[in-house]
């Protein structure tokens, strides 16, 4: 009989962004939870750039917050440069981004976890999973400890078989200076999981005292920072500036001359890297006609001189990195503190997962973050949250919690992963969401807080706050519909200069707001005084965004309904795709791997031919 040192409901392996959310959610749902990590001092470490959010990623953080996750609150307390991206564009594609004080973020995250009831932190390395009767029962640690668990979440990041490359040198590591997790990676292979290799990279960090800051263009924080959390009223951290600079053709020339020293180009790196986060080597080779590439100098915190050289990710030998950096205008005397590097790591085909992020092979085992082939803190965190919630729900015998593509970016991400798999590190984009106009960052609470409340992650005060906000927005919406501007109105003449108005008819503020050139400020001034005085700018913007997009969303829904009427057609469990006559072996294999549960999910599987889909449709509709 197995003797355990300790027993938990849920064990989370890894203290990165996925692991933190998973552990926090499971514990707060009442499951006794352990977070096992290699180094307690590095909980919530930002391994790469010191920033959270950005287009679509910011949406994810706000969705995490609306469901009751912690990332939004932590970054709101530790962010040192808040910017709302795409401010000049429509509300659906605006997204908050904040640069963090790297050390503060880490401390705040650890503090948050330490103050979470039911949550135990344990330092150590997990080397094996205990599985009996196709069910996970615990983990084995390197030091011999055995921990029992009803559910296990693996959120090991780049540590699984991590291999760092700088120039021709390679060494095993999970991150620079930290050991890789080799035995756990081997254990996963032995359990039969299909494992692949991915690659990512990071740029050098500079000593800020050796930078000629005047040579760079200053980029300031927003005057009115937009927080990530719906619970945050005000950003308290003092805000700093970042700086923008450029590479030159002579830098490119030098890189091209030394490509043979780059493991990316010598064939040494086998893993696939992300196309949207290329190394500087890739940039100068693939876009050889560009005569400069943009760089960002991002200070890493209030109390450090360390500066992150964003845009210069490289795996060239450290000596070469130092030479190249000094060729950049403004960095002539700059010193590198930490060299950049590339890292290869194992991931498990996410088509192994169900929509709750539980693997199909074994009950109680969940995967979250880079192990699923994703990249990015936000992508990791939202998976951690979903996996942590479902791990706890499973141990409590409650129904699993799933999110749909139509209602959240998290739903888009999970559905993409489990039906399409990954060929390169997966990052979220707004264009991945069919219903982009409906999935705004500022309405994440309206879309998701009800679920967070039902599950039990959204507390009384947050729920009360949400309801009050919703009521105020409803009042504004009603005022927009009922307030009409007539010719007799004192504001009429000034308004008529901005947009054509029919003097014989009145016009509602809702209709007026849809006119080009009518800014929210104009509408705000026309609202009844009692609404104007009580409302907040973001709440008026929310109401106007709903007003602006409603027609488009309806038109799109009708198009999608017309063309994809069969999307909701269910595909029965254990449907045997291999048995379908006329389906080529390759098509059947793609379907088998993805195991789509609806025809719509099958339609989104890449590489399926129209003929294969037609065959599937005819058979599925016949079998239902």
């Amino acid at each position: 009989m197995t003797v355990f040192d300790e027993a938990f409901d849920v064990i989370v392996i890894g203290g990165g962004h996925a692991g933190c959310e998973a552990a926090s959610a499971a514990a707060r749902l009442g499951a006794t939870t352990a977070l096992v990590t290699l180094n307690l001092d590095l909980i919530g470490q930002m391994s790469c750039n010191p920033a959270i959010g950005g287009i679509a990623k910011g949406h994810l953080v706000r969705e995490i917050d609306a469901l009751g996750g912690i990332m939004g609150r932590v970054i709101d307390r530790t962010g040192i440069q808040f910017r709302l991206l795409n401010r000049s564009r429509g509300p659906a594609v605006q997204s908050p981004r904040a640069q963090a004080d790297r050390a503060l973020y880490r401390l705040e995250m650890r503090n948050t976890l330490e103050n979470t009831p039911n949550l135990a932190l344990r330092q150590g390395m997990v080397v094996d999973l205990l599985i009996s009767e196709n069910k996970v029962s615990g983990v084995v640690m390197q030091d011999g400890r055995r921990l029992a668990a009803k559910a296990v979440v693996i959120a090991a990041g780049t540590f699984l078989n991590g291999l760092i490359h700088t120039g021709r040198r390679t060494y095993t590591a999970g991150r620079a200076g930290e050991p890789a997790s080799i035995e756990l990676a081997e254990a996963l292979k032995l359990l039969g999981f299909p494992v692949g290799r991915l690659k990512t990279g990071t740029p050098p960090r500079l000593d800020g005292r050796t930078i000629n800051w005047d040579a760079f263009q200053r980029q300031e924080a927003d005057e009115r920072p937009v927080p990530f959390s719906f619970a945050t009223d005000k950003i308290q951290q003092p805000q700093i500036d970042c700086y923008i600079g450029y590479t030159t053709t002579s830098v490119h020339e030098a890189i091209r001359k030394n490509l043979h020293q780059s493991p990316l180009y010598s064939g040494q790196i086998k893993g696939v890297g992300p196309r949207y986060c290329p190394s500087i080597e890739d940039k100068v080779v693939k876009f050889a006609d560009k005569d400069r590439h943009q760089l960002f100098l991002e200070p890493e915190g209030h109390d450090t001189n360390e500066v992150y050289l964003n845009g210069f990710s490289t795996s060239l030998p450290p000596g070469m990195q130092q030479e190249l950096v000094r060729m950049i205008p403004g960095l002539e005397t700059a010193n590198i503190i930490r060299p950049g590097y590339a890292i290869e790591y194992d991931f498990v085909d996410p088509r192994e997962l169900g929509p709750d992020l539980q693997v199909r092979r074994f009950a109680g085992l969940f995967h979250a973050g880079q192990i699923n082939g994703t990249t990015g803190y936000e992508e990791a965190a939202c998976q951690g949250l979903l996996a942590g919630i479902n791990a706890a729900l499973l141990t409590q015998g409650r129904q699993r919690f799933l999110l749909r593509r139509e209602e959240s970016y998290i739903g888009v991400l999970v559905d993409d992963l489990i039906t399409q798999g990954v060929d390169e590190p997966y990052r979220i984009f707004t264009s991945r969401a069919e219903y982009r106009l409906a999935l705004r960052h500022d309405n994440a609470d309206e879309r998701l807080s009800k679920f967070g409340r039902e599950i039990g992650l959204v507390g009384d005060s947050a729920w009360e706050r949400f309801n009050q906000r919703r009521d105020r927005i409803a009042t504004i919406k009603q005022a927009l519909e009922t307030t009409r501007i007539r010719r007799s109105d004192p504001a009429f003449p000034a308004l008529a200069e901005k947009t054509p108005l029919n003097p014989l008819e009145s016009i509602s503020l809702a209709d007026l707001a849809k006119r080009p050139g009518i800014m929210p400020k104009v509408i705000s001034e026309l609202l009844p005084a009692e609404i104007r005085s009580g409302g907040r700018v973001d709440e008026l913007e929310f109401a106007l965004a709903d007003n602006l997009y409603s027609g488009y969303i309806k038109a799109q829904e009708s198009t999608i309904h017309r063309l994809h009427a069969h999307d909701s057609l269910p595909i029965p469990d254990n449907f045997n795709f291999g048995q379908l006559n006329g389906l080529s072996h390759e098509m059947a294999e793609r379907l088998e791997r993805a195991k789509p549960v609806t025809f719509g999910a099958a339609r989104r599987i890449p590489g399926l031919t129209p003929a294969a889909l037609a065959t599937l449709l005819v058979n599925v509709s016949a079998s239902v």
Partner: protein
Amino acid sequence: MDTIVAVSTPPGRSAIAVVRLSGPQALVILRAVVGEAEFNPEPNRAILKEVLTSEGVLDQCLITYFQSPHSFTGEDVIEISCHGSPVVTRRLLDLIQSYDARLAEPGEFSLRACRNGKINLSQAEAIRDLINAQTMAAASQATRQLRGELSEALQPSEHELIRVIVTLESALEFVEDDLPAVQVEEMRMAIERVAADLGRLAETYSVGHLLREGLRVAIIGRPNVGKSSIFNRLLRMERAIVTDIAGTTRDSLTETISLQGVPISLTDTAGFREAGDKIETIGIERTRRAMADADLLVVVVDGSSALQKEDHEVLNEARNHSFVVAINKTDLPAQVDLENNFNGSRVVHLSALTEAGIPDLTAAIMEPFGRLDSASAGFLITDSRHHDLLVRAISSLDGALESMDQGASEELVLADLHNALRFFGAITGETTSENILSEIFSTFCIGK
């Protein structure tokens, strides 16, 4: 899967009729029908066999076995060619159904072919058109669709649309990257070009759908102006009864002819006048119905006499339709005041008696197809579903242009462009968001 059976040739009496069986029991049933338990026909070879009932030999038939999966449906298929008497085919069907087969639903053979991956849906559509084609021109158009030429014709437009989407998407998604500024005017012109190209393609439907469905022409006019004579001349046979008694034609009469490869359904109608009796009343009612259904009216007047009250009534009724005036009886001295009566109308002078001017009437009927020769070098839209999708795509593109004119943000312009792309996809196959992202990464250097 059960085994289905149907008569594959049209109903009625013919030299030969084909009864087709498809399904796993086809061969077993065949053995029972020919009374040979060991009968193992070589696939794809016709064999002469006697079909037996309990009462003796039913017929001598030519039997062909197509072995699964090498058959139209992908299943075992048996084709039995028997003599084309309705009695024989009826009894053969009954016999087969007495074993383990049931009568096929309409289109069930094609459905099975589709289910077994032998054909895809758009091929099925093209096959349907090919079977229904009434003329060579329609058949060749269906063949072109079968070969995927519509997708090809749409490809340049689709690529251009994707290029615009990629440019606008990258401006939205990669706001922190150092991307070239979007050339709004260039984008607008590209969308306009795509809309115009689609518009031209969609317009071919006005001719294209006639290729499929045929042109309905009704010959109308007051009694005794020579409608039936013209009808017979166009048919090149004495189909309608012609006398000099006004009101000889009491009922509408329809025949199909092929003019330059286009199917024309030609209807001779009862003349317009105050009805003399109940039969004539019904006849005139049918004339009105034929007029309402027609794509083109041929209004016949007697050129040898002045226009009468009924002529004016007919002309008035025709005003709401597309019509040609045929002034008949040019073999007699002309009495009709052309200038005051037909100004602005298309007019043809002819004599049904001498056949002078009949080619002019044919030419006038075929005028909408004047573009056919030049247009058929490109592609004709013949299917209403394709036409509908194109029109919707164009309307989405117009929406995008309108948003651009109003200075709307990219995501609103893109909402319409993506809708347009979805309509495209219903014809050419879907473009996924992954395709768009790949295109972005190969076009722009992304990566802050």
